[in-house]
């Protein structure tokens, strides 16, 4: 160990909240300039650790153990009060961390001033200086807007700048880059590392995915149900020298497959034909229209629109599906020219299109689980009740929701359950096209893997064409055959996914690829569908299937089959 100053020493930290044991006697130490990525699924205890270290315990928290910050004395972890070192907190822009009623700059400047016990103007200046250190960050003037007017990545940069302006000795990052695209995570992660090297602060980063850990240096600590399963150097853990649970956690990460999985149905006749679709406004009569995009999607095939937010993917998809009008180009869907249809007829055509989005708000929270799945059958096909029940049960069984109470409101479901419910709804509607928009956003690692498996299974069984919208080329590889790379509203590159991964041509494509590929090699992913479930059944440490919503009966079946 180097002569770096010991910043944090945690001993036998236990956190209880009511009857729930969130952390069970964990101990670790951190030196200045060191990074520790705390990895765990939901209810692993990392949230409790963040609360304790950040000194914002909540009512109901019962804490034992000791904390020692810097050169101070070890104190009981339950005792609130200022520590002897400067601690900053960095959270994700997706948490809506700022008041929507005041400008971003004013709030962050106030935070900086408050933490540094200086005047507001001084806080503004410190924030500006910190922001200017990041070449990729937006300008200080552009942040003088409400948080809702900023893109998530702009907010992430401003939050990072505010944290850095406080010159922390310990930075507690709480899923700080969650919900951002791989390229954004890569850029922000690199900036964070550079700042750490410059300022020498210790970093604790609580995360769900291991992607961030792959970008950050330092150790990784894996938590499960309040206990430390493993702690060690990231490279060692990634190389497979780790606990069975950690191995499976690594394996559950989406990553590029060495040998792509066999795809579903053979390609059929054209389903979607697009000619010269150009969404840019035609400026003047005399100017020539730009070339729009032209492509064809056949039945059973899969195409991915890949690009950053604001690159034009969603705008094009909305135009293709008749949700937004366009004037330049021609779209033929299921042999029908969309421009000839009224909005009502277009709406009827969309009944054969399934939408699966990585946002939980797309499902009506008032509806029950059963109603959500039944609705396409009832409203579009007008099937009798017993047939509806049969289809519904089959769909819910396929996605692993059959054991849930069907009368439960959607609002009471977890994010993973809601995502699977969308797949179940897609199954019953027997779509000819499935539009899949960032399906893994906000899910834990295991849940991401299962979600991908479900989508692959959907394509295999029901055979719809896939139109995938994502910023992550790994997802594109898992779900699509061909890729179109978007930037600034235009398609800059298109090719089969294997060609894109092997030999990307455009700089943007290379950038997207580089961000998706972790800096260090990871163990091979699960090779066969369902392997994860079998692995869970065989692992020496007992796993509670509730993590994944998989009922014990299914695990038993998997064990027997294995």
């Amino acid at each position, binding site marked *: 160990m180097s002569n770096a100053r010991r910043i944090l020493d945690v001993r036998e930290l236990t956190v209880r909240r009511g009857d729930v044991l969130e952390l069970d006697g964990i101990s670790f130490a951190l030196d200045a300039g060191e990074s520790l990525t705390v990895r765990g699924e939901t209810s692993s205890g990392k949230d409790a650790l963040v609360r304790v270290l950040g000194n914002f315990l909540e009512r109901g928290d019962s804490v034992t153990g000791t904390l020692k910050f810097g050169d101070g004395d070890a104190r009981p972890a339950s005792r609130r009060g200022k520590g002897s070192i400067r601690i900053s907190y960095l959270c994700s822009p997706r*948490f*809506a*961390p*700022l008041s929507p*009623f005041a400008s971003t700059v004013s*709030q962050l400047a106030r935070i900086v001033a*408050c933490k540094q016990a200086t005047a507001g103007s001084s806080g503004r200046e410190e924030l500006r200086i910190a922001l200017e250190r990041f070449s990729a960050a937006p300008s200080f003037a552009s942040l003088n807007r409400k948080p809702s007017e900023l893109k998530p990545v702009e907010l992430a940069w401003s939050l990072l700048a505010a944290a850095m302006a406080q010159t922390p000795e310990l930075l507690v990052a709480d899923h700080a880059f969650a919900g951002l695209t791989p390229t954004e995570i890569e850029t922000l992660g690199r900036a964070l590392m550079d700042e750490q090297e410059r300022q020498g602060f210790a970093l604790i980063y609580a995360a769900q995915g291991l992607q961030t850990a792959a970008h950050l240096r330092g150790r990784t600590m894996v938590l499960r149900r309040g206990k430390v399963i493993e702690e060690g150097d990231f490279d060692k853990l990634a190389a497979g020298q780790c606990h069975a649970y950690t191995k499976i956690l690594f394996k559950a990460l989406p990553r590029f497959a060495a040998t792509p999985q066999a795809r579903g149905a053979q390609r059929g006749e054209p389903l979607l034909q697009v000619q010269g679709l150009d969404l840019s406004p035609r400026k003047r009569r005399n100017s020539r229209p730009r070339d729009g995009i032209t492509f064809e999607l056949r039945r059973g095939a899969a195409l991915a629109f890949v690009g950053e937010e604001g690159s034009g993917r969603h705008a094009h998809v909305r135009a293709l599906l008749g949700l937004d009008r366009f004037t330049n180009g021609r779209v033929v869907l299921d042999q029908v020219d969309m421009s000839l249809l009224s909005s009502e007829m277009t709406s009827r055509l969309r009944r054969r299109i399934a939408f699966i989005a990585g946002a939980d708000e797309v499902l009506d929270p008032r509806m029950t689980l059963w109603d959500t799945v039944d609705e396409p059958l009832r409203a579009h096909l007008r099937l009798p009740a017993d047939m509806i029940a049969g289809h519904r049960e089959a769909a819910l069984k396929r996605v692993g929701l059959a054991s849930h109470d069907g009368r439960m409101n959607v609002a009471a479901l977890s994010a993973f359950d809601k995502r699977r419910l969308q797949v179940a709804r897609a199954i019953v509607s027997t779509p000819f096209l499935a539009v899949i928009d960032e399906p893994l956003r906000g899910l834990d690692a295991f849940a991401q893997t299962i979600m991908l498996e479900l989508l692959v299974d959907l394509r295999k069984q029901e055979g719809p064409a896939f139109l995938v919208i994502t910023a992550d080329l790994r997802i594109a590889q898992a779900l699509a055959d061909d890729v179109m790379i978007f930037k600034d509203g235009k398609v800059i590159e298109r090719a089969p996914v294997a060609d894109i991964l092997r030999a990307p041509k455009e700089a943007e494509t290379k950038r997207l690829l580089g961000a998706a590929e972790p800096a260090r090699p990871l163990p091979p992913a699960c090779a066969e569908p369902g392997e994860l479930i079998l692995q869970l059944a065989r692992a020496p440490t007992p796993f509670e299937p509730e993590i994944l919503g998989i009922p014990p009966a299914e695990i038993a079946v998997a064990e027997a089959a294995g």
Partner: protein
Amino acid sequence: MLRFVLIEAGRLLLGLLGAALMGAAIASVAHAGDGVLQFFSVWGEQLFSFARLRFGDSAISGLPIVTELATSLPLTLGLLLEGIVVASLIGIPVGFLFGMGAARRAAAPLIQIAAAVPIFCAGLALAYLAVNFLQWPVQLDGPAWFGSAVFPRSLAEAQAALLPALTVGLAGASAVQVVMSRAAATIAREPWRTQLYRMGLSRWDVEWIYVVPQIFAALFAHLGEVMLSLLSATAVAEWVFSRPGAADLFVKSVALRDWNAAGAIMLVFASLTLIADFMGRCAAHPLISRGTVR
């Protein structure tokens, strides 16, 4: 801000136009039996007159309605103003008291139990307490004995004026407290309150710099609702305590089928609510800070 004010002003003008249409229609009721065309013709004439603030003569007294309003409206506005003062003095502190803190927010709706008392019952109860426990000289029947004065000129008049003011004020306070508690409960669910605290602001800063302005903004944004409560309470208080204000005149006009007066007073009351709503939304806009009014 200017754009917002102009849009709201447009809404106000549309609203006032609608109120004028309604008032003119009421004033034309007497001609409803003369046929549809005749009715619409009279309606148009009445609307034109209303636009020039000519409301005609009262069918009861024969005096110009403007004169009647000049006598009665100040009493109503005086009572309204007194009620606003009481509502502010009681409602705003109570709104904060029950808006801050989860436990107190849970208890806030219990205040609605007190607000379940109808206004006229509350007025009569206050009069009973004043007469029997404080020995105040309160009269509920007969002509209003403080004459046409808007504000009391003696202790006895003050004592008598306090009761209707309290009646109106308590109704207004209830409305104010509901709006503030509702806003506080909505804001309490927002994640930014916790996150700002975690990022380093003190709870005091979070509450007083970011939360309290939003509660006031909600109060301003719902000023129209509060004004409606106050106007209703004023109408009842005038009747209970025999104050010859505009609401009392409205009731008598309807009873005696003086539709000109009824239409004019209707226009005045609707305008008060619309103007209060306009002013409230404009006052709320900067506090909500270039965002949507809730």
